[in-house]
C-alpha cells in the first residue's frame, strides 16, 4: 500500500520523513472466546502523525492494541514496522522495536519518586543516577512534559501521573506510542494539555496511536482516523472530511437517534427528598472522615438529577446510603412520602427504587448464575419472580426472554451465565431488569460506562422514556456529556458535599469540570449558554436548586 522505507535509525529526532508508514497492520484476525474476534483488520499509520482508533466499547480496539504491543498473538495477518515484517512474542519484543504503551490504568508505584518509577525495570539504559536524571530532563524539555523527577508519585494528580507514564515509555526509546483511552480519567482542561503534549511528540517525529470513543477529542487531535466496529476496520477517514455525527454513525453502523429537543417532564411532586444526610467513615489510615456532609436535595417525579464530581468524592457513598447499603449517621431520606432513612435495602427496592450499580459485576450480577436467575436478583419478592415464599421459575424465565428480546441483549439463550456476556449486554440486562419493575426512583450510577454507543443510546432512551412517565432519576456519571445531556438538574459533589448546582442547559463540560475540582461553588450560571445540549429545562430546575441548604446560594463561578 505504501512505499517501503528503510528501517529508521535509532538517533533521536531524525526518523523517516512524515508520510511513510510507521506501522502497518494487515489482515489481522484474532479468535478469542467471549469477545468479538478481530477479523481482517487493516490499518496504516503514517510516521509522525497522531492516528486515532475509534470504536464502541467491545468493538475490539483493546485487543488490537494488545496484539500490536505483543501481549497477544494474532491468528492471522501481518504486522509491519517501517516496512519490515515483525512478530512479537511479548511486550519486551515490542518495546525493543520502539513501541510503547500507556495503559488506561496507570502502573506506577505510589511510594517511589518520578525518577525511580521511570528507571524501574530499565536500570540498564542510563543507570539510576545522574545519567538517568539527565535523560529524563532532556525528554521532559524536548516534549514539554514538565517533569519534576524527585516528587513522589502519590503526590501527583492524575494528569501528572499520565505524563510520567508517557515519560516512562519515551525513556525506553519508544518511537511509536499507544495511548489507551488516555482522556477517560482527565477533566477537560487536562485533556487540552495532553493534546498539546501529543502535538509536541508528533513534531519530534514520533508516532501516536490514540484509542478513544470520544469523537470530539478525536476530531480535535488526530491526523488520521480509523473506525473499528465489531472487530473489523470499517473506514479510514481524515478529520477534515467527517463530522462528529458521521463518525458516530460509522462506529455504530446505523443512523444515530437524533438528540431530541427535550421538553421538561419535571413535575412538582417530590419523589425523593434527602435532607441533611450525614455519614462518617474511618479511612484506610484509621482517620475518621466525613464521607457525606449535610447532603440535601429533592428529586421530583419526572426529573433527572445529575451529580457531577471527580470519583471518590462521596458519590458512591451517597448511592449506598440511598440504597440502604450504608446506614447514615444523620439526616433523612424520604421516598414518595415514606421515611426510609434506616429501612432495609429490600424494603426500599420493594418501595420502588431501581438500581443500576456503578460496578455491575460486583453489585449488579451473579456472574456464575444463568441470566434468568440474574433477572430475579434484586426483585426476589416481586412478581413475576415469586408467588408468596416460592419462586416462580417458569414465569421468571419467560420474563427473562422478554427482557432479552426487548432490550436487545445479545445472547444465545437465557441459561448462559452472566459472565459470558459482554459488558454492554450485561448492562442491558440490568437496565431491562430494573425498568421491568416500573420503579418510582431509578438510581443510575455510570449507567453507560463501558457500554457501546448503540447500547448507550438505547439506555438513554429508556431512561428518558421512563422519565416521561414520571420516573425520578438520581444520575451519577463521570461522563460529563451524559450528565449534561440527560439531567434536568445538576449538582456538583466535592469532598462529601454538594458544593454547587448548575443548569444543564447553560453549562459547558469545561465549566462543570472546573467546578468538580472544587474551584467553584454555588450556582454556576454565568457560563456562556452555548445551547450545545439542546432545549431548555424550564423553571423546574430553579425549583430544585432552591433546596440547596449549604448556605452558599449566591456564590459565583470565577
Amino acid at each position, binding site marked *: 500500500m505504501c512505499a517501503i522505507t528503510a528501517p529508521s535509525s535509532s538517533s533521536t529526532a531524525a526518523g523517516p520523513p512524515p508520510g511513510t508508514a510507521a506501522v502497518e497492520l494487515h489482515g489481522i484476525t484474532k479468535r478469542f472466546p467471549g469477545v468479538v474476534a478481530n477479523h481482517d483488520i487493516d490499518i496504516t499509520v503514517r510516521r509522525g502523525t497522531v492516528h486515532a482508533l475509534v470504536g464502541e466499547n467491545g468493538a475490539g480496539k483493546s485487543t488490537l492494541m494488545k496484539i500490536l504491543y505483543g501481549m497477544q498473538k494474532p491468528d492471522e495477518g501481518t504486522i509491519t514496522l517501517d516496512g519490515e515484517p515483525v512478530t512479537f512474542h511479548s511486550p519486551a519484543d515490542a518495546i525493543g522495536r520502539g513501541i510503547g504503551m500507556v495503559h488506561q490504568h496507570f502502573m506506577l508505584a505510589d511510594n517511589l519518586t518520578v525518577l525511580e518509577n521511570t528507571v524501574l525495570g530499565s536500570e540498564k539504559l542510563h543507570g539510576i543516577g545522574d545519567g538517568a536524571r539527565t535523560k529524563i530532563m532532556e525528554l521532559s524539555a524536548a516534549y514539554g512534559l514538565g517533569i519534576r523527577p524527585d516528587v513522589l508519585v502519590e503526590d501527583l494528580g492524575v494528569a501528572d501521573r499520565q505524563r510520567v507514564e508517557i515519560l516512562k515509555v519515551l525513556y525506553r526509546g519508544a518511537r511509536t506510542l499507544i495511548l489507551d483511552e488516555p482522556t477517560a480519567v482527565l477533566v477537560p482542561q487536562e485533556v487540552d494539555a495532553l493534546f498539546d503534549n501529543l502535538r509536541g511528540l508528533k513534531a519530534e517525529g514520533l508516532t501516536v496511536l490514540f484509542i478513544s470513543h470520544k469523537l470530539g477529542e478525536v476530531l480535535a487531535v488526530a491526523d488520521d482516523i480509523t473506525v473499528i466496529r465489531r472487530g473489523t476496520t470499517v473506514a479510514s477517514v481524515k478529520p477534515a472530511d467527517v463530522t462528529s455525527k458521521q463518525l458516530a454513525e460509522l462506529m455504530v453502523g446505523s443512523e444515530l437517534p437524533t438528540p431530541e429537543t427535550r421538553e421538561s417532564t419535571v413535575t412538582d411532586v417530590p419523589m425523593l427528598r434527602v435532607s441533611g444526610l450525614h455519614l462518617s467513615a474511618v479511612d484506610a489510615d484509621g482517620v475518621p472522615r466525613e464521607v457525606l456532609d449535610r447532603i440535601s436535595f429533592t428529586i421530583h417525579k419526572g426529573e433527572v438529577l445529575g451529580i457531577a464530581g471527580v470519583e471518590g468524592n462521596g458519590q458512591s457513598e451517597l448511592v449506598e446510603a440511598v440504597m440502604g447499603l450504608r446506614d447514615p449517621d444523620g439526616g433523612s431520606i424520604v421516598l414518595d412520602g415514606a421515611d426510609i432513612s434506616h429501612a432495609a435495602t*429490600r424494603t426500599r427496592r420493594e418501595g420502588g427504587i431501581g438500581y443500576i450499580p456503578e460496578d455491575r459485576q460486583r*453489585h*449488579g*450480577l451473579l456472574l456464575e448464575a444463568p441470566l434468568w436467575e440474574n433477572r430475579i436478583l434484586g426483585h426476589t419478592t416481586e412478581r413475576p419472580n415469586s408467588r408468596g*415464599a416460592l419462586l416462580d421459575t417458569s414465569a421468571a424465565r419467560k420474563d427473562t426472554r422478554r427482557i432479552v428480546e426487548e432490550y436487545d441483549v445479545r*445472547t*444465545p439463550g437465557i441459561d*448462559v451465565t452472566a459472565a459470558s456476556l459482554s459488558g454492554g449486554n450485561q448492562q442491558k440486562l440490568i437496565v431491562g431488569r430494573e425498568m421491568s419493575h416500573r420503579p418510582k426512583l431509578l438510581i443510575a450510577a455510570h449507567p453507560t460506562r463501558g457500554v457501546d454507543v448503540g447500547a448507550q443510546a438505547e439506555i438513554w432512551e429508556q431512561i428518558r422514556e421512563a422519565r416521561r412517565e414520571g420516573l425520578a432519576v438520581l444520575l451519577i456519571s463521570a461522563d460529563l456529556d451524559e450528565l449534561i445531556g440527560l439531567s434536568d438538574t445538576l449538582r456538583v459533589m466535592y469532598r462529601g458535599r454538594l458544593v454547587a448546582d448548575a443548569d444543564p442547559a447553560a453549562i459547558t463540560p469545561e465549566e462543570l469540570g472546573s467546578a468538580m475540582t472544587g474551584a467553584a461553588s454555588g450556582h454556576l450560571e454565568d457560563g456562556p449558554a452555548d445551547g450545545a445540549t439542546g432545549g431548555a429545562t424550564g423553571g423546574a430546575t430553579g425549583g430544585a436548586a432552591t433546596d440547596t441548604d449549604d448556605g452558599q446560594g449566591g456564590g459565583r463561578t470565577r
Partner: protein
Amino acid sequence: MKRLDRDKLITAVGAPVLAVLAALVLTSLIILISGKDPFRAYQVMIEFGTTDRSAVYIVNKSTMFFLSALAVAIGFRMNLFNIGVDGQYRIAAFFAAAVGGALSLPGLIQIPLIILVAMGVGAIWAGIAGVLRTTRGVSEVITTIMLNSIAGAVIGYYLTAGRLGEKDGNLTHTPNIPESSHIFMFGTSVGDINGFVVFAVLAGFLYWFVLNRTRFGFDLRSVGRSETAAAASGVDVKRMIVTSMVLSGAVAGLVGMPTLLGESYNYGTDFPLGVGFTGIAIALLGRNHPVGIALGALLWAFLERTGTQLEFEGYDQKIVEVIKGIIVLCVVIAYEVVRRWALRDQQRRVGEELARAGSNDKAEVGA
C-alpha cells in the same frame, strides 16, 4: 435449549465420572507399585460390597454421611466453610440423648422431641460461629474448628457418672432412651435398615426445595455467589450468614440421630466420631446437590465397607483411605476443569452470536 440441557448434563455427570475414572487409574497404579493386583482388589470390593448384608450396612452408614454432607453443603452454598459439623452433631446428639434418657414419653412425642433437641443444640452451636462472624468478623473456619474442641470438652465434662452419664463396664454413657423412643426399622433377612433413612431422604428433598424453589433459597444462594451483589439486591447478608449457619447446625444435629435412635440408644464414649469431616469430603464430591451427595455418601459407605474386606484379602486397609483422598482431589480438579470448559464454551457461543451480527455489518459497510 437442547444444547444447554446437554451442557448441564455434561457438567453434572461429566465431572464426577471423569474424577472417579481418574481416581481408579491412579489407585490402580498405587496398588501396582505396592506389588499387588489392583483388579483383584476391585473384584473383592465389588463382590463383597454388593452382598445383601453389605447393602444394609452401606445404606445405614450412608444415612449418617448424607446428613453430615448436607449440613456442610448448606454452608458451602453460602460460601461458608462449616468445619464444625463434627462438634455440632456430637454435642447435639449428646444433649438429645441426655433428654431422651431422662424422659419416658410415648414414642410419638418423644422421638420428635429428641430430634428437635438435637437440631436445636446443633443450631445454637453453629449459630455461635455465625454470630461471631457477623459481629466480630471472625472467620467461621477458625471458630467452628475451636467449637469442635469445646464441644468435646463440654461432652467430656457432662458425660461422667453423677452428672449426665452412667457407668457401664469400662464405658460411660447417658442413660438409655426408653424402648418407645427407638426408631422404626425396616427388617431384612440380613439385618435392619435404620428407619431414619426416611428422614434423611426428606431432609435431602427439603434442602433441594428450599434452596431452589423458594425466595429464601435464592437469597441464600445469591449471597454465596456474590456477597456484594446480594447486599445490593436487598439481602441482609449478616442475617443470612447467621441463618444459614443455624440451618447448617440444625441439619448437623440430625447426623447422630440414626445412631442414637436406632443403634446405641445412648451417647457413650464409643459414639462415632469424625463423621463431620467425612461430610466435607462428600459435600465436595456431590457438588452440594442432594442427589450427588446421596451418591457420594453411598460411595463412601461402600468404600468403608469394602476396606475391611480388602484387609482381609491381604491388601492394606489404608488403600481405601488413599482411594478416598484421590477421589476428592480428582473431583475438585475435574469440576474446575469442566466448569472452565463450560464457561469458555458459552463465551464462544456468545462470541459466535456477536460475530454473526458483526459479519453482517461488514457486508453492509462493504456495500
